[in-house]
């Protein structure tokens, strides 16, 4: 058997190895040349672009008002890209009046039509870019095209369309998204769908309610989560129905939504949800009770300090500190629970909020408790250890009984 070296060597002077060396050296040279040429080109391109941006910025008002004829820049891709990106960036931070002016400019100059055309006709990443740009214009006429793209077989395109619709932040876009999920179910990951719906449903959360009631499985949970985020007092009654739903996530939604409720029944609903079997429902209810700032919440929150879940205990402690009630009285109630985990959660929240010194001063100044109790509370505050309960004191030794033994 001949060796590989011999086999290769026998190929002659124009051998494989020589060719390979040549190929590798050429590849090295080409890579180097590419790097150098690209650097030079980009440098020139960005310098040119920068100069052009500056030029357009100087003429910005004339550009928007149409004083500068649109044809002067519309037909040159380089200028069109610059003007469009400047307009869209300005749109992101514009007030109502300026938004209207920019939208009008985008419309009259035909940029929206162009994006609609691209979003319909192009494919791949170009279409994705067009969809997002169309969404950024917030033009109502673009919503239908974006909604069409939601039915595309490609997930990337669907996501781009969803992002675009989210950027419009309009109730019509919300209707399109909801109609689509109603027809096709959950065909995109939850997070982008939630974000888009939260943006679009903020103005009109009622649109979500029928979908939350009729959807099934994970989609219902997602829609519920969105409703919890955008709910206003106007949907209190619908949310109330969710408080008794068999799906955990929807009960949590109700708990979340009730933090913004103005209804008198909010406290009762949340107190009930704070007893739920599922920890995250209790967690949501406790957080919402803290936000309600209702003094009636104290017993519920103190009870939650004894919860089996660490996060629920911590949030209950934080909620207690948010309440506008005397801290000393609350702390005394916490100590009365004689629950080591609960007391620790409260002390942790106290430390995190840097309120320990204030509580110590309040205890000293309090006229509602006697000196013994003050000392007891101070001891717990300093050491975190449970106070000795007189009811559980060991009986003093009975000398008679002792002698009998």
């Amino acid at each position, binding site marked *: 058997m001949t*060796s*590989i*070296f*011999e086999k*290769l*060597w026998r190929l002659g002077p124009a*051998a494989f*190895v*020589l060719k*390979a*060396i040549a190929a*590798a*050296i050429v*590849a*090295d040279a080409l*890579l*180097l040349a*590419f*790097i150098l040429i*690209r*650097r030079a080109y980009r440098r020139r391109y960005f310098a040119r672009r920068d100069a052009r941006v500056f030029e357009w910025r100087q003429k910005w008002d004339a550009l928007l008002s149409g004083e500068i004829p649109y044809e002067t820049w519309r037909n040159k891709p380089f200028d069109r890209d610059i003007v469009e990106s400047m307009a869209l960036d300005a749109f992101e931070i514009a007030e109502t009046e300026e938004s209207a002016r920019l939208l009008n400019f985008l419309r009259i100059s035909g940029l929206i039509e162009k994006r609609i055309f691209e979003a319909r006709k192009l494919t*791949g*990443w170009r279409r*994705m*870019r067009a*969809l*997002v740009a169309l969404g950024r214009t917030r033009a109502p006429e673009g919503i239908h095209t974006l909604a069409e793209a939601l039915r595309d077989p490609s997930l*990337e395109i669907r*996501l*781009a369309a969803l*992002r675009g619709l989210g*950027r419009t932040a309009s109730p019509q876009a919300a209707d399109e998204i909801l109609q689509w999920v109603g027809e096709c179910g959950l065909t995109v*990951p*939850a*997070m*982008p769908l*939630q*974000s888009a719906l*939260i943006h679009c449903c903020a103005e009109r959360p009622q649109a979500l309610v029928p979908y939350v009631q009729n959807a099934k499985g994970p989609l219902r949970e997602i829609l519920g*989560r969105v409703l919890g*985020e955008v709910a206003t007092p106007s949907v209190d009654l619908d949310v109330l129905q969710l408080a008794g739903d068999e799906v955990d996530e929807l009960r949590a939604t109700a708990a979340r939504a009730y933090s913004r409720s103005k209804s008198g029944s909010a406290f009762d609903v949340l107190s009930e949800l704070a007893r739920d079997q599922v920890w995250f429902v209790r967690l949501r209810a406790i957080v919402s009770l803290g936000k309600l700032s209702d003094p009636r919440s104290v017993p519920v929150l103190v009870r939650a300090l004894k919860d089996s879940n*660490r*996060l629920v*205990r*911590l949030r209950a402690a934080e909620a207690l500190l948010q309440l506008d009630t005397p801290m000393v009285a609350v702390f005394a109630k916490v100590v009365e629970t004689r629950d080591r*985990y609960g007391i*620790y*959660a409260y*002390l*942790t929240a106290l*430390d*995190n909020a*840097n309120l320990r010194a204030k509580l110590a001063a309040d205890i000293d100044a309090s006229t509602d408790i006697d000196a013994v109790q003050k000392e007891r509370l101070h001891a717990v505050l300093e050491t*975190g250890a449970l106070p000795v309960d007189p009811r559980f004191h060991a009986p003093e030794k009975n000398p008679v009984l002792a002698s009998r033994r």
Partner: protein
Amino acid sequence: MIRLLEISNETLFWYFLASNCAYLLMLIIAFFTSARHQRRLKSQRLEWIQNAPLVPPITIIAPAHNEEASIRVAVRNFLELDYPELEIIIVNDGSQDRTLDELRDAFMLRPVRAVYVPEIPCARVLGIYRSDKDPRLIVIDKLSCGNKADATNAGLNVATSPYVCVIDGDSILERDALLRIMVPVLADPQRVVAVGGIVRVLNGSTIEGGQLRNVRLPRRPIEAIQVVEYLRAFLIGREAWGRANMLTIVSGAFGLFRTDLIRAIGGYRASSIGEDFDLVARLHRHLLEKRADYEIRFVPDPMSWTEVPSDLKSLARQRARWQKGLLDVLWPNRDMLFRPRYGRIGSIALPYLWIFELFAPVIETLGIATIILAACLHVLSRTFFIQFMLFGFAFATVISIGSVLQEELTYRRYKDWKDVALLVSYCFFEHFPYRQLHMLWRLRGLWDYFRGNHAWNQPKRKGLVSAGVS
């Protein structure tokens, strides 16, 4: 004897060819993946994530051991990161210098009685502090166990977010790094369980007020060669493995994980030498055994900048430790090899690591020794030998320049022409004698491991001082 030498030379030739072809394939995959990633980003704007509701919170865990020179800058950098919901945990891992005092002074720490449940075992925690300046900052002071894994576990016990981002206490993150690393998670939170970001060489660059200002190539050749290595490893290797969902390493200097999963597998293995590799291997095992549909992704644009060893001795120790770490993970996981239940990880990724990473120093050293012997015995054509070496040199240089090109096409962090020219020149010069030295260090690592030296040797660092902190 002569036949044996011939077989050895042939083996070396095929081994070398296979290794470089594998890298070439990865380079091609990396080019396409990177281009796809860049295009995808065009339909996404990072500020939308920053302002999005319901974005999951992240806890940054940064273990710090004797980092008095750099800890202030690093923490300031973490606090300035763009992310809506952030918790930062610095674990002072038994520092004997002024690390804790520096933190206390700079961030007004006060002791808190946080609920500490040692769910994952770690060395004793001496105290937990929270910053009065920024309540997002928590500092854990603990006894040292001599390794980063134990310190990270202490941080995991305190973390309250669904995602943890583990980084080095002397690393600098780019301002939008967390937003970028979360892009794949937000797109598919059910499947994506971990994401690795890219780690770049900080030496030579300038930091101002906790932010990286001027990226420059380090002046010292030993540091600059590591830049080429890092580019090759991350922009080619990890990008390609990540594309095929076969990523086996998420760098300990910058990686994001789902907290519940790390806790489910018992956190980092405190006795491991390469704790980052070990964690990902156990994560794969855990999820594959559960037949879970998951992904571990690599994202090339969220950048962490870290200091690399600047002297030969430290570099040798670091590389020896990496090699030990590799063996320390591959050996206990040898049962995953070629078992159908472990899918691509067992049939492609791990065998690759065994053959082209673990055995590489042994095979290459033996191969070179036999080539020399063959030459001495006049069984090797001298002309062919020179041509073979030239071919090898040129082929390997293509891969290295390819990684520089990849950086040029995508991120272009080195703005100065001179830096790029130098970087390219190092692609030519790293093959001799750096490569041979590197091989010897790795051999030394294996030797140490077999002798029972499993110590976690921390390389000597200058702190961020090397990066011209101001």
